[in-house]
């Protein structure tokens, strides 16, 4: 297991992280106009010497590889630079926005698992019946309809017909737990719908596969009730592949939060990134994209670890 992880870390994860850092660093240097112009904004009225002084003070007169290495050294130490808007450290801004995004992602995962796992089991047990057909239609819709469309329809429904939940804003968990959950209910549903649909489909086919195996026939033959056979044997084994999917998909949810936070006006990292783009706050754009991409890679590593722990066969390879 350890050697499997080490090999993956060296051959795949590290090169990927390296590539991400180059992409994020390089992107900012592709911006038309010099970085000094961006720093100074439009009102700047400075001489050429002052310009060069500013460039030198930021180390912008060094060759790009040198600048990259210095930037990387800073990043590794947690220094992502300062926001051009507020002058605050970018890492601090990200950390300040982290709770909302993290809570939204976790809640979305939780909501979709609570719905999808029982739904998948039901669909498998009543295969071909009305329940199965209805659930599969929902699954198809959940896989096809993008999260921002689900979010928009939810906002439309709640604000015009059924005003029981807030459609914008975020109440921090530390202030009011009920208010917090209310403010995240609709965003979590929009974000989790895709995960719910894919988990339900996987769960259905995994349970069906287990139900067809011989050991379950033996279990039935020795007189166990259908409920015990399904819940204790089939479901337990069917959960193995599902766990991996959830791990990988939770990484994708992080990307989805960008748009869902925008719809419901939740002050998370995604919104920070979007605001930074419209305000041309490049250090924040750089910091947030780097942060989310690295988090995404780490989620995948975590999924690998969990998969390795649950399924011993993977460790041998």
């Amino acid at each position: 297991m350890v050697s499997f992880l080490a090999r993956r870390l060296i051959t795949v994860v590290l090169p990927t992280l390296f590539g991400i850092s180059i992409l994020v660093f390089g992107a900012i240097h592709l911006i038309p106009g010099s970085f000094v112009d961006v720093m100074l904004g439009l009102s700047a009225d400075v001489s050429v010497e002052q310009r060069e002084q500013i460039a030198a003070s930021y180390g912008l007169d060094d060759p790009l590889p040198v600048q990259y290495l210095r930037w990387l050294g800073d990043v590794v130490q947690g220094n992502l630079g300062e926001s051009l808007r507020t002058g605050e450290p970018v890492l601090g801004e990200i950390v300040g926005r982290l709770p909302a995004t993290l809570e939204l992602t976790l809640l979305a995962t939780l909501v979709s698992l609570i719905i999808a796992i029982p739904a998948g089991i039901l669909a498998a047990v009543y295969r071909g019946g009305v329940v199965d057909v209805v659930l599969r239609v929902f699954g198809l819709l959940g896989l096809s309809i993008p999260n921002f469309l689900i979010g928009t329809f939810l906002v439309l429904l709640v604000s015009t017909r059924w005003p029981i939940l807030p459609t914008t804003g975020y109440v921090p968990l530390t202030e009011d737990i009920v208010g917090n959950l209310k403010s995240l209910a609709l965003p979590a549903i929009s974000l989790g719908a895709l995960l719910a649909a894919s988990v339900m489909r996987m769960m259905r086919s995994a349970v069906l596969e287990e139900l067809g195996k011989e050991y379950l026939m033996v279990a039935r033959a020795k007189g166990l009730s259908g409920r015990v056979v399904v819940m204790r044997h089939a479901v337990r084994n069917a959960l193995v592949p599902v766990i991996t999917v959830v791990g990988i998909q939770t990484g994708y949810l992080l990307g989805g939060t960008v748009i869902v936070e925008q719809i419901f006006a939740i002050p998370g990292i995604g919104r920070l990134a979007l605001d930074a783009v419209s305000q041309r706050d490049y250090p924040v754009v750089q910091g947030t994209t780097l942060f989310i991409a690295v988090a995404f890679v780490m989620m995948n590593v975590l999924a690998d670890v969990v998969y390795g722990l649950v399924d011993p066969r993977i460790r041998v390879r």
Partner: protein
Amino acid sequence: MGEIRRGRNRGRAARALVRHHFTGVVAGGVLVAIILAALLAPLLAPGDPIDMAPLDRLQSPGEAGWLGTDVFGRDVLSRILYGTRISLAIGGASVIFAALLGTTLGLISGYARGWRDYAIMRVMDVLFSFPSILLAILIVSINGAGFVSIMLAIVLIQTPIFARVVRSAVLVVSEVDYVQAAEALGASTSRILVRHILPNVMAPMLVQVALSISGAVVIEAALSYLGLGAVPPTPSLGSMLSENRVAMEQAPWAIFFPGVALGLLVLTINLFGDTVRDLLDPRVRSATSV
């Protein structure tokens, strides 16, 4: 005689297609209708999709047009028709670019192996490890909002998928006897790639094209929704959802109908793509028919 026979076989094949892939055939029909409506938008649209008419603001579907008007007094149906046109054009064009680029990289990667394979696949991993919206944000922050940025984003997001699909197909095909025979006979690398390997890679590649288009349509709509894509007043299904939000309570139709149009478009492309996969993927086909 031969003609009649072939006609009868064709009729039987058509009936079998409808019977085995009913939803796919229906989805294909709806998709053709949507594409025709988008192509004929200038003829079908009852109003101008861009000109603002402040006096006609927020008219309900009964009062003005089939689907009412939006916050700027523009006919919603007309904007949906033109917006669908843009969705399909951007989606189709960028998927074609991504398919060409990804297929080329996948062919090189899978056939050359070694360091070239490693280098290409690591670059693909990097692109793959960016959530698509994030990659788009990075591009828009450099290049500004607009269709060029959207297409660039979609190409960068989808190229790795094509590269992976094609590479794994190449890995399988290049072990096959006739490819080894061609190598032994001294055929050039380009001849082997184009004549022997590419035809075998086409099926999974085409399946991926069908599946990718719906993804591309969604990315275009999402970016336009966020204001990173279509620049106002250009009609886009995504931007219609966000620009009419201010008047959601008075004019829900200005959001509802574009949303339904987008959902229907994505759903039919997905269903159609699934059917294409069933028909072209030899493994699935051998399991159901033959």
